[in-house]
């Protein structure tokens, strides 16, 4: 990855979509909201990056973070709890028990 020209705009956008998709996968309301918020703020902040080395480092970190997010959102779907009082019950969603 050392001499890579850095990710393209389309690649970054695709990665961002992956973050949103996986964050949305969290069954837990608070984790879901947090990772959605984090994805938005991180990508917005990194948009200002210019130095190729910094961009490349941010890209690598993001890939690692996406791995964590994917695993954890899957785990969150396996060990579920009741919905939170601020969360609307979605009838399309699975019911308890």
């Amino acid at each position: 990855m050392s001499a890579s020209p850095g990710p393209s705009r389309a690649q970054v956008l695709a990665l961002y979509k992956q973050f949103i998709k996986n964050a949305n996968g969290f069954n837990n309301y608070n984790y879901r909201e947090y990772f959605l918020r984090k994805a938005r703020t991180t990508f917005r902040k990194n948009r200002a990056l210019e130095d190729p080395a910094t961009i490349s480092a941010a890209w690598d970190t993001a890939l690692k973070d996406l791995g964590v997010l994917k695993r954890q959102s899957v785990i969150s779907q396996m060990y579920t709890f009741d919905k939170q009082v601020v969360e609307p019950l979605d009838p399309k969603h699975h019911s308890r028990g």
Partner: protein
Amino acid sequence: MLRSFGRSVFSRQRLVGAVARRGYATAKVAFDVPLETHTDLQKANEDLAQARSNSAEVIESGSTALKHAYQENTGFGTRPIYLDMQATTPTDPRVLDTMLKFYTGLYGNPHSNTHSYGWETNKEVETARKHIADVINADVKEIVFTSGATESNNMALKGVSRFYKKTKNHIITTRTEHKCVLEAARAMKNEGYDVTFLNVDEYGLVDLKELEAAIKPTTCLVSVMAVNNEIGVMQPIKEIGAICRKNKVFFHTDAAQAYGKIPLDVNDMNIDLLSISSHKIYGPKGMGALFVRRRPRVRLDPIISGGGQERGLRSGTLAPSLVAGFGEAARLVKQEYETDIDHVKRLSEKLTKGLLAIEHTSLNGSPDHRYPGCVNVSFAYVEGESLLMALRDIALSSGSACTSASLEPSYVLHALGKDDAMAHSSIRFGIGRFTTDEEIDYVIKAITERVEFLRELSPLWEMVKEGIDLNSIEWSGH
């Protein structure tokens, strides 16, 4: 949703194949076992409400009315909003992600140095130690792992004073410390040490002049907490550190509620010992650390003797999963510091403004020297416990959380000079990384409605509204 993920991730083909290979006659049976395991919290909630309404104290305060105070929100979930961040914080999924591999293969004893199993886990332990030390600008060699802040506090208070008992026998602490510091100090008193409990002012702050005056030639340790767990008040740690250094006494601070939440630098602040708890920073429970300064060296008698792990200060095999989880939690509090503090501050201001807009409410503790993630408010003419009962949809604790079994009012609020009634009507709100705007809005609305409801039931409130000065009344009986 889960079913589809189950098919894609855990290939069905492979499962069926494995069964067929073993040649069971039942190979055709579809083992469509759901991967999901659901925990029903509502049941716990109902049991709790039941237990509470059965208790004698509550019946006296009129439990039928409380049933009306609690309203279910149809169309929404039932799990309460978690606002008890001072008791403990939710484990960050990123922390769990670092911990899992220690249960699926990385099981070596970190103290085994004859094979790679031990070497692997030892490497992870040392990485974690570095992350933990970095948050407070300490050296890795100065971090001793313990089972939590309770153990760290005991180790500091008992260990240091026992080591120096030949020449010194005096300990200074404050009245608003966590129970574990107060009890450890009391235990030392029983061992024959002299203990000074400093008073705090109405804002919960210690008086530096009083502190300096309390130091004697025989004083070996001053222990003052960085952030109070009930009222969120921040003590002037740097100033206390300077006083202690000047007078050549060791300075211990219980930073369970402060570590990773307010800026701490052990060198700049002249801290000699500092207690940390992992589960207050989104890490695993049952894990903590004690920072022990090396230069100038702080010496202490270990409480736990054994194989000499952790520089002989705390023997016993480490739990690498907990250590690594704690390390990741520490790395995250450092990495997310700015984001977290901005978020917490914003929500805290919103909540404080919303709650203080209700008449006859007041913020406990200093409004300026505080960690914003802890908001303690008194609602006059409302009983805190009744309010909590009417708030089954919000997980909160009253000021007396420490001794929640009894309805004894908080000793911390007493130390601030609050009367029993005020202490009884106080509630602590804890805000953290995972709290949302939506939740805060819900809480403000719920509290406003229910405080009003409960006050309508109170004869005192009627008098207040009629303009009768309650202090002018001569109470009979009791």
